[in-house]
């Protein structure tokens, strides 16, 4: 990106002013749309004091919802670590007719509205299920909904790493006596580990906040299948904005922590990369 200093000077102050204006506009857009509203949530949660916040956040139904949310999100993230890797492996290393179509379909949860996902899963695994599996209104339903929406994250995170991996290392491991499982465990896994972690973290964050699909599939039974986002929703409907804000802040903090952790991980990776 080096250019002659002459051109820089010529375009100089005009460009700098324009750049600042651009920056300002972008910042204003973000502030009005993202930053201000989020700040309002945080502020509102603490407006009536720390005591009120704590009470709202630890109210039994809220606690139950939060516990369920985090537990299920962890289970789903872990499940994705396994299945996501398997799927990425098969998509990269295996050949079969229709592979291209399957690869495109991985992005379906990105493209499909969450509410439609809920309806879709309910049609097959709900009370009128043609295969006799009924997990509507159960925790399993929550897990299923979240498994659907988080499917692409680990797959798409691991796939590029597998694609650019040279087969040399695995072949070297084979010649040194390692079977396919050992070779995977000792060579492939460490190589994809950072991408796996990143994908799992994204899946977790997504699962924690998911609403549309869970609302349909879980039945939203308080203390049983009500997740945090649904709980916040019902609080808002009942005009209990303060409590809603408090629980929201718990969710917000979790998301921010996960994002920050990811960021840190990626920064550390690029600092001692090859």
């Amino acid at each position, binding site marked *: 990106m080096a250019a002659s200093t002459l051109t820089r000077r010529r375009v100089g102050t005009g460009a700098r002013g324009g750049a600042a204006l651009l920056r300002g506009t972008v910042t204003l857009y973000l502030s009005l749309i993202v930053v201000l509203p989020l700040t309002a949530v945080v502020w509102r949660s603490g407006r009536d004091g720390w005591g009120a916040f704590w009470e709202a956040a630890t109210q039994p139904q809220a606690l139950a919802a939060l516990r369920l949310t985090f537990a299920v999100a962890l289970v789903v993230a872990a499940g994705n670590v396994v299945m996501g890797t398997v799927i990425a492996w098969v998509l990269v290393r295996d050949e079969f007719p229709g592979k291209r179509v399957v690869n495109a379909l991985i992005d379906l949860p990105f493209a499909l509205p969450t509410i439609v996902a809920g309806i879709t899963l309910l049609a097959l695994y709900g009370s009128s299920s043609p295969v006799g599996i009924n997990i509507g209104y159960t925790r399993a339903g929550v897990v299923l909904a979240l498994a659907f929406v988080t499917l692409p994250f680990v797959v798409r995170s691991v796939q590029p790493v597998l694609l650019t991996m040279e087969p040399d*290392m695995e072949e*070297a491991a084979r*010649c*040194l006596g*390692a079977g396919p499982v050992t070779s995977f465990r000792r060579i492939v896994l460490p190589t994809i580990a950072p991408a796996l972690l990143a994908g799992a973290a994204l899946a977790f964050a997504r699962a924690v906040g998911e609403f549309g699909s869970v609302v349909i599939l879980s039945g939203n039974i308080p203390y049983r299948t009500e997740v945090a986002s649904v709980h916040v929703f019902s609080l808002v409907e009942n005009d209990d904005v303060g409590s809603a804000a408090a629980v929201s802040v718990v969710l917000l903090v979790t998301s921010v922590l996960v994002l920050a952790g990811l960021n840190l991980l990626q920064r550390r990776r690029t600092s001692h990369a090859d």
Partner: protein
Amino acid sequence: MSILVRNATRRFGDFTALDDVSVEIPSGSLTALLGPSGSGKSTLLRVIAGLERPDGGSVEIDGRDATRLPPQRRGVGFVFQHYAAFKHMTVRENVAFGLKVARRPKAEIKARVSELLELVQLPGLADRYPAQLSGGQRQRMALARSLAVQPSVLLLDEPFGALDARVRKELRAWLRHLHDEVHVTTVFVTHDQEEAMEVADRIVVMNHGRVEQVGGPRDLYEHPANAFVMGFVGPVTRLGEFFVRPHDVEVRRQPNGTTSEAMVERLVHLGFEVRAELVLHDGQHVWAQLSREDAEELELAQGQIVFVRPSRTRQFAEVPAG
């Protein structure tokens, strides 16, 4: 541990990489598989290693049929052109890998790794990561890693191809020296005939998936089986229907009955040698390589008429194709 490949064939779609190849590699030898790209030499090496399965034919290692065995059971060490270093492990862990997989006791692993690092002259770098090593050091680590599991056969796929010229020369000599010390049956692939001639006891020349000739360096140079081998292993020029080495083209100022008339088109001075590009009556281009003294003695100059004849020739029945 000798290797016997019989009638190996391997096709990739329309492309035939190996076409009924049979080769014997004597125990303890240092053999080069030499040929241009696409000649099948790397494929043959990988078939021996078990990294490729031949479509037909068999591989025997030390008398045992290894055709169906996966690489991890053949007892072969393999060194890759781009090192295939385990990036996430230290040098020590890399070298110890095969021993760890074989579940050797810790003390044994430790001792063996130290011994090997001494052998390849990398003792101080045991705790570094491959990314912190130079290319030459990485390749020596890869060699140590392969030797750790005491393979009966060591296979190297263009091992010095990714290194710069100076390091390449150093490592060639070093490989020869290592072989003299360790005596493992070694096969390496190269497209560089100078490298093959310098390092190997025996050379297998390949082209288009077939073996053209097998022999020692001198053998191949002085008694090439066909025009391809002759041209690949050294410089060659044509005089009439004969194939001649440029320095076997005798250049005289006077005819003597067996010579042909030629005109000097161009003289190229290459340090201590002179290359004379000549053209015959019928338009055929020949070139001769002379020492500087000989060229001076003959007082060669551009446009001059001289008389040439081959002092040693090879004649081949067919005109070679590519």
